[in-house]
């Protein structure tokens, strides 16, 4: 029997998937284009027996998530770019205290107050840390609502598995669009027991959750321990998607909604017999650098397409390491390119003499 399809707004798909994945605490502060998430949570969370709080700021929201997570509850917040900037100190605290959390960023145009249209300008912030100190977030980038649904569920599992903050990096298009998708059932994997939570020391020794490490060598060791975790994530958690890259001379690299638009351009060029492929990182950290390096060694050229002034392109260049050519096309400032525009740009790049 075919499972019924769901038809929802992107933001609502994320919120419902979170609830089904066992999220029982949500705190957030209004900001466009993600308001449907807190609005949906305000309705659904009490039904599910969880807690919804409209906080006084994004700073309070993320610190509430920190508290709920320390009590062992699956917790999430969502915002859009300026709000995510405000959360950075606490995200660093989550990483330092090794607390799981899911943070959704439905990006809008920046810098500053920017605008409220879709953008990918927060790639650096999401992938390179954003807050202070040596830490990483696992970052997922959905490109349709099916992925928004599935990756939200996965985000909670990975946050618990590694005890890290996990970010779902969407954008205004992914948040606002509606399309049908399969409401995959949430199946809870085997996860380590949460034997670190603070919920009163009945029948056990008192626990402390902290990120302050003042002992000699203590903080360095903690950082090495975190590095081990990030190395394991680099080994095991890379997800990417490819279309027609095997025989392609030019591989378009794009994530999220930019990849979705690029895909239709790439398909059209393929139909005309042009050997163009699309490579789409689904995890932005860990970045699929090995696969890109492998393609570079085979002599493929790359064209990175982003809705920003050029951010992921730096990671592609690092992965390629001079083994092949990398060019960039982007539209910053909350401009969503059209398939025709990308078609022309990719076609020109494909035809360009090396």
């Amino acid at each position: 029997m075919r499972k019924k399809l769901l038809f929802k707004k992107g933001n609502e798909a994320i919120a419902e998937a979170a609830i089904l994945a066992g999220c029982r605490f949500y705190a957030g502060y209004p900001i466009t284009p993600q308001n449907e998430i807190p609005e949906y949570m305000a309705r659904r969370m009490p039904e599910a027996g969880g807690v919804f709080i409209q906080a006084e700021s994004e700073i309070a929201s993320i610190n509430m998530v920190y508290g709920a997570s320390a009590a062992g509850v699956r917790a999430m917040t969502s915002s859009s770019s300026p709000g995510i900037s405000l959360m950075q100190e606490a995200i660093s605290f989550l990483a330092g205290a090794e607390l799981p959390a899911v943070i959704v960023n439905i990006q809008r145009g920046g810098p500053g107050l920017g605008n409220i249209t879709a953008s990918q300008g927060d790639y650096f912030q999401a992938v390179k840390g954003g807050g202070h100190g040596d830490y990483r977030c696992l970052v997922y980038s959905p490109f349709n609502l099916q992925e928004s649904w599935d990756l939200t569920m996965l985000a909670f599992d990975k946050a618990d598995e590694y005890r890290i903050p996990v970010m779902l990096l969407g954008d205004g298009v992914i948040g606002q669009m509606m399309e049908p998708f399969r409401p995959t059932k949430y199946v809870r994997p085997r996860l380590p027991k949460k034997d670190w939570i603070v919920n009163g020391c009945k029948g056990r020794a008192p626990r402390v959750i902290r990120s302050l490490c003042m002992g000699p060598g203590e903080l360095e060791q903690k950082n090495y321990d975190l590095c081990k975790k990030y190395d394991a994530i680099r080994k095991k958690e890379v997800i990417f998607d490819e279309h027609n890259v095997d025989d392609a001379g030019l591989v378009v690299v794009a994530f999220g909604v930019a990849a979705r638009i690029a895909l239709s351009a790439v398909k059209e060029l393929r139909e005309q017999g042009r050997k163009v492929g699309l490579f789409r990182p689904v995890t932005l950290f860990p970045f699929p650098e090995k696969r890109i390096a492998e393609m570079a060694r085979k002599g493929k050229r790359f064209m990175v397409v982003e809705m920003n002034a050029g951010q992921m392109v730096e990671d592609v260049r690092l992965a390629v390491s001079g083994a092949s050519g990398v060019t960039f096309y982007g539209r910053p400032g909350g401009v969503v390119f059209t398939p025709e525009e990308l078609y022309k740009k990719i076609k020109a790049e494909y035809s360009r003499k090396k």
Partner: protein
Amino acid sequence: MEKTFARPRSLKTVPFRYCPGCGHSLIHRLIAECIDELGIREKVVGIAPVGCAVFSYDYFNFDILESAHGRPPAVATALKRVMPQKIIFSYQGDGDLAAIGTSEIIHAAARGENISVFFVNNANYGMTGGQMAPTTILGQRTTTTPGGRSAATEGYPLRVSELLATIEGASFIQRVSLDTYGEVTAAKSAISRAFRGQMEGRGFSLVEILSPCPTDWGFSPKASLEWIRTAMKKVYPTGVMKDRDKGI
């Protein structure tokens, strides 16, 4: 022979490493005694601030969660909401609560969160070396008000308890001091009252404690208590600022 004075179970058996004469040690002890007397040690989760008392996790013998600077009321809100049966308190200095964390404390009070807040007013930033706090009194010399705090340039001291007492969501607010034996006894009663209020589901309570910081004030422990009496209490009178049950 009956032992009538012992270390509370809620304190670990390690000596305090706060400065000699510091109020934090005494306040830790009062909180620990109240928790023992109420029999709630195994239900308590305390929140350590950023400030000298971040190290409270070395001394309290129950669960502790460290928080970012100023954010304990947000952290406490979540802990209490997801574990309504547990007893949640935040312990915050005046930089933590009255400067960087003003938004969090006001909104936790406004929401009427059923938590207990212990607010240590030592009129400066202890941990960072004695800079001006919002609670620094006029004329008080600190490392960032070398000529003494002046209303013209630094404005006026913030009376947190009076401010929070205007908030409908707050159920119990009292300012206490540590400068005399009688005041210490009153401080303990207020702390106990704040915990009992939470256990009875009465909502937000806060106890502000005027507390000596001899190191950064540059006074002896004894002179520090004298300064609380003669200078601080003029700006920060002790007493119950709000008690919803008694209509205060």
